[in-house]
């Protein structure tokens, strides 16, 4: 058998490297895939993808929760600072409590005094 002759099909080479390195083009295709699917930052051909997408999710959730909490706190503080109505009604002059938000007019005071007599 001569050096270049083969006896079986199985002796044909199964590994035939391409004429050029295809990896740069494949890496570019991978980058395009990522950009199309989730708008992630570009991937260097031999680099490792940074999981920015997964890190952003907890931060966003925290921001939303904090905003809701602040709004709720502000509403509670606002309601607490408003003048409240006690069981005896709007008795602004009773006891030592003075409701600054409401000042009864002079006519009301005179008529009330007349009724009390």
């Amino acid at each position, binding site marked *: *058998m*001569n050096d*270049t*002759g*083969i*006896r*079986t*099909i*199985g*002796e*044909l*080479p*199964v*590994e*035939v*490297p*391409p*004429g*050029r390195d*295809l*990896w740069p*083009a*494949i*890496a570019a*295709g*991978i980058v395009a*895939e990522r950009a199309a699917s989730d708008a992630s930052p570009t*991937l260097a*051909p*031999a*680099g*490792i*993808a940074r*999981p920015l997408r997964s890190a952003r999710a907890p931060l966003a959730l925290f921001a939303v929760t904090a905003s809701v909490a602040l709004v709720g706190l502000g509403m509670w503080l606002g309601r607490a600072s408003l003048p409240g109505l006690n069981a005896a009604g709007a008795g602004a002059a009773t006891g030592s409590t003075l409701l600054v938000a409401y000042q009864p007019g002079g006519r009301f005071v005179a008529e009330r005094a007349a009724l009390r007599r």
Partner: protein
Amino acid sequence: MPDSGSSMPMSSADTATVMDFDEALARRAGRGDARAFERLYREHVGRVHGLCLRMARDAAAAEDCTQEAFIRAWRALPRFEARSSFGTWLHRIAVNVVLERRRVPTREEPLPPDPDALGELSWVFDTPVELAEIETAVAALPDGARDALVLCALYGYTSVEAGEMLGLAAGTCKAQLHRARQLLASRLNRGIV
């Protein structure tokens, strides 16, 4: 399955080690590790390109198909479940790419009516054949016969496995193999024992 570029088959232990390594790299690559995928590319590009080259019969088309196969493999990596080896899975993708790129579906000659009656084939020539001569003869085969020959006789897939890759019944694939054998013997003017 024959070892890459060598006529000596790997031991089952070597094969298992390679498959474990590939599987580990594939898992990492499936999580977005491009370096792991590059290693898989470096390891498998020769066989994938060889497969595409023999099926497509054109160097430029083979490079395009190889590139597309790896990009599709990256896309599909999260779904790789290691039911078959990574190489087999990759070859399936490459075969699909080549078949999709064929512009005109070839209409083959009628095949034997009872392909299941066909026995196992050997591919030993009664006299040595020049490498260039046999490459030319393989490239000249009709698409269906050449596909079956490349996958089974060269890359070591069974007719069932090759049939699945090519979208053919196992019997049809076997019949294509027999046809390839007859045509090769005729073109090379040699007996195949």
